[in-house]
């Protein structure tokens, strides 16, 4: 990577920090700081704020409103936001379906959908997983049968994040039952307001319903909402998965929680000494720091390889596997080190922005994240799937 690229990424990090300190509204910053639950309105406000900075689709090509960010800038942006503890940059529009539309969509589709994605005028969700077909997309059973100028879709999706807020669902469906498992799949955009779409929330361990079941019963979808060609959905899905796996934010999340752990261990005194002076905890933090160093350097190495085209194909998996493991473990230590406060949970307070019953003011948010982060090694391609990918693609096993 050239010095100039590095300097640009550093400048971007500084801009992000300035944005956090000076542009981000105080209430949103406070909610972020305390890891409060955000409403749809909060998220939309957040995504539009990013758009106003010119960042929401900066990784897109200029012709579609992007800035053509390098992989390094993209990484630095996601990483820095996560380090600051900012809200999640919801990826379904800007990161996942947007690129599929500009890469494979028709001109009409581009004009119809890209502007709304950029500004989060329309809220998107992803319809990939099905009961019995998580990472195994070949087992997909949702059908879309062509009837005249529309498809009739029947089936059930699951683990659909924020489907309860979505205006649109991009969806993998089976348009040809007789074909080979993978070649009968197509990529369809479904209006969530269509009759026959039902969203059933799934409560997760943290007491919220980030994810949903989406039931599709005789849903009529105009044929013009098919992306590309019938039967090529698998190709587009793979293209999208590649984007899903550029998990830049995971390094930043691991950093953020490690930083929080250090802060807690420095500020908390037991029997007159700071927690961080207790050898067991100190050495555990040291070990996390060391693993973080390895992770961060490996991430830069991966970004450099993406930039110069020398990827081996396993980089993103490595970052996801290692990063999520570290993120989970550090969080576990942080919660443990909170003692009695680490097991006191008031879910309501997270909505009402109230204070937790015990502990620092962000305790509730920490616990919420601790619960939900068990999913970090499952969603978006589980650690097992990631290892399968590396074994096959990189090691040839």
């Amino acid at each position, binding site marked *: 990577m050239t010095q100039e690229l590095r300097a640009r990424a550093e400048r971007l990090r500084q801009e992000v920090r300035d944005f956090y300190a000076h542009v981000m509204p105080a209430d949103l910053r406070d909610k972020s700081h305390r890891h409060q639950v955000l409403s749809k309105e909060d998220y939309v406000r957040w995504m539009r704020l990013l758009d106003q900075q010119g960042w929401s689709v900066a990784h897109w090509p200029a012709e579609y409103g992007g800035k053509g960010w390098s992989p390094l800038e993209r990484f630095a942006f996601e990483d820095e936001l996560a380090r600051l503890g900012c809200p999640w940059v919801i990826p379904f529009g800007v990161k996942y379906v947007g690129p599929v539309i500009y890469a494979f969509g028709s001109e009409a589709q581009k004009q119809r959908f890209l502007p709304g994605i950029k500004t989060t005028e329309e809220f998107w969700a992803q319809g990939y*997983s099905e009961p*019995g077909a*998580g*990472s*195994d997309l*070949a*087992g997909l059973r949702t059908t879309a049968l062509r009837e005249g100028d529309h498809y009739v879709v029947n089936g059930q999706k*699951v*683990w659909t994040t924020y489907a309860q807020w979505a205006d649109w669902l991009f969806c993998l469906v089976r348009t040809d039952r007789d074909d080979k498992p993978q070649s009968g799949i197509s990529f369809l955009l479904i209006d969530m307001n269509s009759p026959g779409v039902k969203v059933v929330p*799934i*409560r*997760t*361990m943290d*007491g919220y319903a980030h*994810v949903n079941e989406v039931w599709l019963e005789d849903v009529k979808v105009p044929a013009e909402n098919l992306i590309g060609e019938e039967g090529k959905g698998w190709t587009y899905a793979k293209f999208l998965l590649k984007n899903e796996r550029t998990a830049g934010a995971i390094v930043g999340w691991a950093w953020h929680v490690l930083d929080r752990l250090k802060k807690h261990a420095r500020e908390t005194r037991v029997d007159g000494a700071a927690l961080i002076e*207790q050898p*067991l*905890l100190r050495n555990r933090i040291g070990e996390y720091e060391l693993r973080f160093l390895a992770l961060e350097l490996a991430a830069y190495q991966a970004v450099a390889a993406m930039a110069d085209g020398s990827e081996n194909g396993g980089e993103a998996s490595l970052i996801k596997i290692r990063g999520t493991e570290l993120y*989970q473990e550090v969080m*576990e230590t942080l*919660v*443990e080190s909170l*003692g*009695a406060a*680490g*097991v*006191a*949970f*008031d879910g309501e307070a997270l909505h009402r922005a109230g204070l937790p*019953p*015990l502990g620092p003011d962000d305790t509730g948010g920490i*616990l919420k994240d601790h*619960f*939900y982060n*068990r*999913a970090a*090694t*499952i*969603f978006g391609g*589980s*650690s*097992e799937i990631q*290892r399968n990918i590396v074994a096959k693609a990189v090691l040839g096993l």
Partner: protein
Amino acid sequence: MSTDLETIAMLRDSAARYAEDNYSFHQRWSVLEQPSGYSPQAWSDFAEFGFLALRLPEEEGGLDGDAVAVGAIMEIVGARLLMEPLLASAVVGTGLLLRQGSAEQKATLLPALADGSLVLALADEDAPGQACVFDGRHLTGGKLGVLHGDVAGKLLVSARDTAGETVVVLVDAEAPGVSRKAYRLVDGRGAALIAFEGVQAECLQPESGHSAAESLAAIRDEATVALCAESLGIVRNLVTITTEYLKVRKQFGRTIGSNQALQHRMVDCFMLQEEIRALVAAAQQALAGPAEERTRIVSGARAYIAHAARKVCNEAIQMHGGLGVTDELDVSHYFRRLMVNAALFGSRDAHFARFTDATLAVASPH
């Protein structure tokens, strides 16, 4: 004192049967919605079965149950995630009263403990900067993380007297000067922060010469061992249900349990279960032994089990995939229960340090 095997088997069976019939995962949903965080019906059923008199001497109508007997119940408590204050009141509260109460104090309270009309909780961890002080008649200070402190009728509170000695005092939870802030633990059980401002209190006054510090140490170890048995019950169920899931869940056209990587990890979980089982038995035995070795084995078991149980649970969640993180499957409830268990009666690091120091203080036998 060693409870006979027949009694233990009877206890285990009746607890298991009761839970099977009345405390399924789905029946439990309504329990979670109770204001007290547990089922008053189950609590009175437990009294009827004699579970609440488990620790009481036979002359008081109890079973004189030892750690193995307590463990038999606690394993079911863990396996079925029972929410009632068995540990807090029937084991810890009752046990401490038995050790440290005067004849009169026992005569007054034990019947109410046995019939379930009284929940007696131990308030042991000082709130920062609010160490509890007992001036002979009144108690002042603050405690946090009092398990079932939200519903307890009376509280045993560790404090210092004016001479700086450790004492255990008994207070009425509704007495003037007691203020409680109730909250829920992550597993749904109730707890409280409790502040005492010149609250009228009486000291536990044993006829025997046990010091309060000794009795507190003993009861903490006893509670720790009971928690270990609870964790064993959890781990056993996690291993069972996850193994079953591996056999039925299909991906890429075959059961996920046919993947060798998952098989090997499941074997590691099973091995942890077996080690936990052995450690629980050893810790139960150690409770009756000399204090130093008791501490060493109990803390060792606790430190190992806290880590091992968490690992098994993390694996169970991971192998269940998305389902594992939902509220709708028991796996996530085990996860939250284990979190709470790991925070009660001393952290993993504290127990590990205690084990290491005790072990390395002893020279090698040969």
